[in-house]
């Protein structure tokens, strides 16, 4: 059984700035493995716990700097890694990012399950997992909180809905995205850390994926025109002193302002 885990390198929260012309800069930010993707790796390892001969391959589309997050994903466990990197892959929209990933899944050829996080904390698009499944014409089980059963040809999982959960069964191949409730990621073992250093990372560019000029930032359907930083600081009312007075003054203000 072959599992592909999609991970992304993202700037750490709060470390991205916006300049006066509305452009983003993460140049000074520390970069990390997208936190949700740790759950995707953990899910792959949970499947491997049950099917020991399962092979896990980490895949990411990003700059050459992504090697570090690939290695940190591998330190949890994993047998191989693929980096999709090309100048043409910079600043793609989700349609084209998921197209690149789909071409890579097709080139890899043997994947039974592709596992994604449910969203990336930088662009918050929520779209890559369903769009990747759509490009591949695969079934999808999104927002998985628990895999109930997995065999060599099918998977049964609970996916979170707005008011509960569905139990969904799918044949392979299938794409799943996971949420935090699948369980806290295990700690990287010493063996895992050693392994992470050894694994060869394959790099595929646009040509290797058989993609042409249709993949380019200028050809993207969606462009981020500009950004604004939300820095809310309110001149609120502050109440200090003994608790009964604090509460009394606060309640009076609430009443004056007709809040509750």
């Amino acid at each position, binding site marked *: 059984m072959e599992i592909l885990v999609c991970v992304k390198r993202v700037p750490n929260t709060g470390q991205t700035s916006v300049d006066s012309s509305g452009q983003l800069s993460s140049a000074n930010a520390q970069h990390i493995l997208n936190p949700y993707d740790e759950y995707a790796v953990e899910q792959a390892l949970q499947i491997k716990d049950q099917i020991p001969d399962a092979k896990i391959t980490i895949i990411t589309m990003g700059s050459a700097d992504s090697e570090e997050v690939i290695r940190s994903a591998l330190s949890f466990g994993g047998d191989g890694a693929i980096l999709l990197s090309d100048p043409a892959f910079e600043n793609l929209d989700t349609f084209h990012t998921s197209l690149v990933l789909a071409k890579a899944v097709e080139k890899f050829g043997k994947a039974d399950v592709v596992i994604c996080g449910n969203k990336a904390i930088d662009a*918050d698009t929520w779209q890559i997992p369903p769009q990747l499944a759509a490009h591949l014409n695969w079934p999808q089980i*999104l927002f998985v909180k628990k895999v109930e059963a997995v065999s060599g040809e099918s998977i049964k999982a609970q996916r979170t809905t707005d008011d509960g959960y569905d139990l969904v069964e799918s044949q392979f191949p299938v794409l799943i995205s996971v949420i935090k409730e699948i369980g806290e990621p295990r700690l990287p073992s010493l063996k895992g850390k050693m392994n992470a250093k050894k694994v060869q990372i394959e790099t595929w560019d646009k040509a290797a994926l058989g993609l042409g000029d249709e993949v380019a930032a200028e050809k993207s359907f969606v462009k981020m025109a500009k950004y604004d930083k*939300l820095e809310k*600081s309110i001149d609120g009312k502050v109440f200090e002193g003994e608790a009964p007075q604090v509460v009394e003054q606060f309640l009076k203000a609430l009443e004056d302002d007709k809040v*509750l």
Partner: protein
Amino acid sequence: MIFVLAEQKKGVIQAGTFEVLEAVRQLRESYSVACAALLFGSVDEAEAQKLAQGGVDQIYCAKEGLDSFSDEVYARVASKLVQEIKPKVVLTSATFQGRSLAPRVAVASQAGMAADCIELKVDAEGNLQCVRPVFGGSILGDVAFSESPIQFASIRRKVYPQVALDSSKQAEIKPVAVVAEDLESRAKVVDSVEEATGEIKLTEADVIVSGGRGMKGPENFKMIQDLADVLGGAMGASRAAVDAGWIPYKHQVGQTGLTVKPRVYFACGISGAIQHLIGMQTSDVIIAINKDPEAPMIKLANYALIGDLFEIVPLLTEHFKSKS
């Protein structure tokens, strides 16, 4: 044309759909264009006409075999209809269904999509312009759709109010032909479980009372629940409290928890780390209870009560109880 992917459960059109129709109403104030909607599953005529009352000019109903949501099947049916009617803009609510369905239909339609938008506008040519939160909501991004003949967006829940219904309006209901192969799906829903907890859902709540590490232990969350109860609200928490095992994950507010936008948010013993703030900073009124006047939450609060929450919270509960 604007095309809305509507959502129904058990024959009832969902609130998120009426929020989308309010966004459509506002768009049509400056840009005159027809609006169609697609409704899946068995919905009776009177319920379907609510879409017309909310401004829809043409209602498509795809009934047979489509009562419950299936990612592949709904996407196939919706994609075919998009191809047929060629709308310029396709909108849906960013619910579980909307987030699963719309991105798939966008790919099938060779179209761009902006997810979880909080503001929609159109330019003179009818191109959609969206504002969407990125980086967990700490930054807002403006999306432009220059190269996309069809433009998809999902709208975050509870940002727009539900559209006012005009009961005098009616629209033609067109059945959508569905063939057997449209209904084939490799992923099958074998069971659907509603977790009716009786609790008010955090994302729907008008008032939220949250507790953090300052609560000191699981037993003290009763104090938070009591205040939430008298205010008819829901109970939230910071990740520190969840990670300590004091309260279940489903109460967590923040980047790796829920994004909420109640009318009133109480933060009790929560310092206000960026990861927590981005889950609740758009609340209408924020009330912080903290013994540290320098806590970041104090800067964001409309009302800051400096002091010991173990003294303050019970006094508040007592007051609101005596009032109700």
